[in-house]
């Protein structure tokens, strides 16, 4: 699936719920399914700054595509990063860099997060873009 298709399906999933409790329940489920970072990368070097809970992110390039793994000590945070992983993992660096991020506004996630969590979300996206940028230059 393309990034756009995945984003559309996430927007659809989120719009099924009226209640933010249900959306959080979905994020929590996503957190539990997050592709977990290899233990060797679970250190300060892979820590994303700007999150109130700790979150680690790693990426590797296989056959020209970027694959992300992550972890966090808070499950909702893990759900948010996994939501981003679902969108960006398995895509080319170029596609990631040119992706439209307006789906985050469409699902209303940003406005429903506390400002600190929202900053964390921005930091996560930025870190993923940095990985894509780095892989683009070597591929």
């Amino acid at each position, binding site marked *: 699936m393309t990034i756009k298709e995945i984003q559309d399906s996430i927007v659809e999933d989120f719009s099924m719920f009226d209640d933010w*409790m249900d959306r959080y329940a979905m994020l929590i489920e996503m957190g539990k399914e997050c592709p977990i970072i290899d233990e060797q990368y679970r250190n300060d070097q892979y820590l994303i700054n700007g999150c109130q*809970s700790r979150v680690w992110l790693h990426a590797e390039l296989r056959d020209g595509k970027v694959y992300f793994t992550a972890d966090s*000590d808070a*499950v*909702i*945070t893990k759900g948010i990063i996994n939501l981003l992983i679902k969108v960006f993992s398995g895509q080319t660096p170029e596609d990631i860099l040119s992706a439209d991020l307006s789906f985050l506004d469409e699902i209303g996630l940003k406005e429903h997060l*506390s400002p600190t969590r929202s900053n964390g979300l921005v930091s996560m996206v930025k870190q993923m873009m940095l990985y894509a940028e780095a892989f683009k230059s070597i591929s």
Partner: protein
Amino acid sequence: MMDVNEIRRQFPVLDQQVYGKPLVYLDNAATTQKPLCVIERERDYYLHENCNIHRGVHYLSQMATEAYENARRTVARFVNAKEAHEIVFTRGTTESLNLLATSLGRLLASGMSLRGAELSGATWQSTRRPKVLVTAMEHHSNLVPWQQMVQLYGGELLVAPMDDNGVLDLQAYENLLKQSPQIVAMAHVSNTLATINPVKEMIRLAHQYGAITVVDGAQSMAHLSIDVQDLDCDFFVFSGHKMYAPMGIGGLYGKTAWLEKMPPYQFGGEMVETVSFEKTTFNKLPFKFEAGTPNVGAALGLETAIKFIESFDRKAVAEHEEALVAATIAGLSKIEGMRFIGQAPERSGLVSFIIDGIHPYDLGTIIDKMGVAVRTGHHCAEPVMTRFGIPGTVRASFAVYNTLEEVDILVHAVNKAANMLR
């Protein structure tokens, strides 16, 4: 018996819905809500009385000056200070503590001998290297100013440990006093653990070893009766906004003898006596420590907040808050994996907890969606979290207007969130 519903009517902010649920405000240790009388007092000041105070020859200025000085007298009476000039208005606890750390640091670095029987028996050693003793449960505001001060002058910070229940180790505290700190700074009530420290005994011991004492009353002013003469503390600091008063006002009580000796903290208007390009002499107490235009409106709000607190039977309020804490502990302890952080026998109006395998931040996020406002995180007391080996806690803190029904909603919300997050 207190009529909590009647009290709640005085707090319009409580009567609202968040995410379609009635607001349950349990973040009172961060800041309390303000009763109508306080809001109206500050509003009235700006409607009818606003004027810059002191030195004004005209009517409004004199009235405002008198009102401001009356507010000071009310604070002095509330904490039972000997003199009104022993109360310095500040922005709050943090500014009061910065004032103290800076001013006492300068005094100490000047090498001035402060031995003297008149100074509450404290015989500050004539040394230029400051040593400050704090407890392991301090809020950053009663830790970082002292830490930075001792670092600036090449001194040392001593930390009195506590046990797993969050009770200060008095024996260890006394042993540290033997290392001759000049200043001992202590939380009256811990903002994370709820512990009420035995400050009177701690002050007595500190004086016995020649140290002066600073009590951080940020979490005690709204809940306990404060008598600075009975405590015999040299300084006591507090914030207005944690005791139903507006933000931006708080205070510092200091014994006259100390305040006289201390150099000013900030310089500028109001705090001077005479100024020439060569030299400035400073105003008398308490104005020496109040540089610039003060927050007069908030000071009047603080005075009204004090009268609001005094309008209740304080014993009944304390019992009410104890009942809320007891019901919270009883309700939450049924939840699997519940761990209370801070289980001192002497405790004040808050409950801090974590649940095994659940990040406090996640829990706070979910119960927020159910309308329950609590605080999550390290509560500006990171060393306390490190001591207990946890990333933070969830903290529910109470005020006079909270109800047992709200405790039920909290317990229900935490239960539901825990089931979702596990």
